[in-house]
């Protein structure tokens, strides 16, 4: 498994195109190497994309239509091919019980929105 700081192929899952743009920009600011981004607007679309693309890191929102982030994280962690892919959860809600549940599922980190390069660096470290 690559460490978070080594991630170059990143899947961003969020129903807001604005949030996906901000997340992408934060990674671009934090990284010195070029990154490849894939984007999905809910958990169901993200699972389909994971069949087609290998990624080093998943960044997902929680509150999404069709398939929410909790269900998506659970499905990834139950999939032997995907279970070792690190997941960062990005949510506007901060709830310690939800966070401990996600950590129990193997989530690597949690960021409360709005994401910033500084918040990202504190979790991921220097990705260069």
């Amino acid at each position, binding site marked *: 498994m690559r460490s978070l700081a080594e991630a170059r192929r990143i899947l961003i899952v969020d129903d807001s195109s604005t949030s996906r743009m901000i997340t992408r920009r934060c990674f671009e600011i934090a990284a010195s190497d070029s990154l490849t981004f894939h984007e999905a607007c809910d958990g169901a679309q993200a699972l389909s994309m994971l069949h087609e693309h290998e990624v080093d890191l998943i960044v997902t929102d929680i*509150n999404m239509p069709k398939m929410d982030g909790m269900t998506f994280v659970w499905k990834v962690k139950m999939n032997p091919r995907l279970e070792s892919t690190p997941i960062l959860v990005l949510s506007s*809600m901060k709830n310690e019980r939800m966070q401990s549940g996600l950590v129990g599922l193997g989530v690597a980190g949690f960021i409360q929105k709005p994401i910033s390069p500084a918040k990202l660096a504190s979790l991921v470290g220097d990705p260069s």
Partner: protein
Amino acid sequence: MSQTNPIDEALEQAVAETFSEMAFLDAIPAKKPASNPPGQLFSIEVHGEQTNRLVLDLPLPVKQTIVENIHGSSWEELSSSDIDDCLLEFLNVLAGAFGRLYWGDESRYKLSFPQVSVGPPRESDSSPPDSFWFDAYDRLFAIHITREV
């Protein structure tokens, strides 16, 4: 006379944090203006021990500044769906900060999906909405909160 209760404090701090961190703007509490500038409404429900419905009431100049600062693009270059998505995400983040500040990290609260609202802020059976006014660089906007027990 300024009010200081937990909802006021949580809302003022959530507004200050979200405007500063997301839109690079300072927003401070303001007095209600003599006449309300017409604004577009965006609403979200924060479900905790009770439900608070937040309605963000943004006149065009404030909307424009928030969206341009977040996107780093001029208003004319953005589609209406980009603009609505941006303002709905902005309200989503603001409501998340409000829930955290009002109920605390260890509480359970949930957010509805934010939506563009039509018509005046809804009154619940139990209480009319409270309106809170803010000033972002001489541009006024409001947040209306309806509490439902």
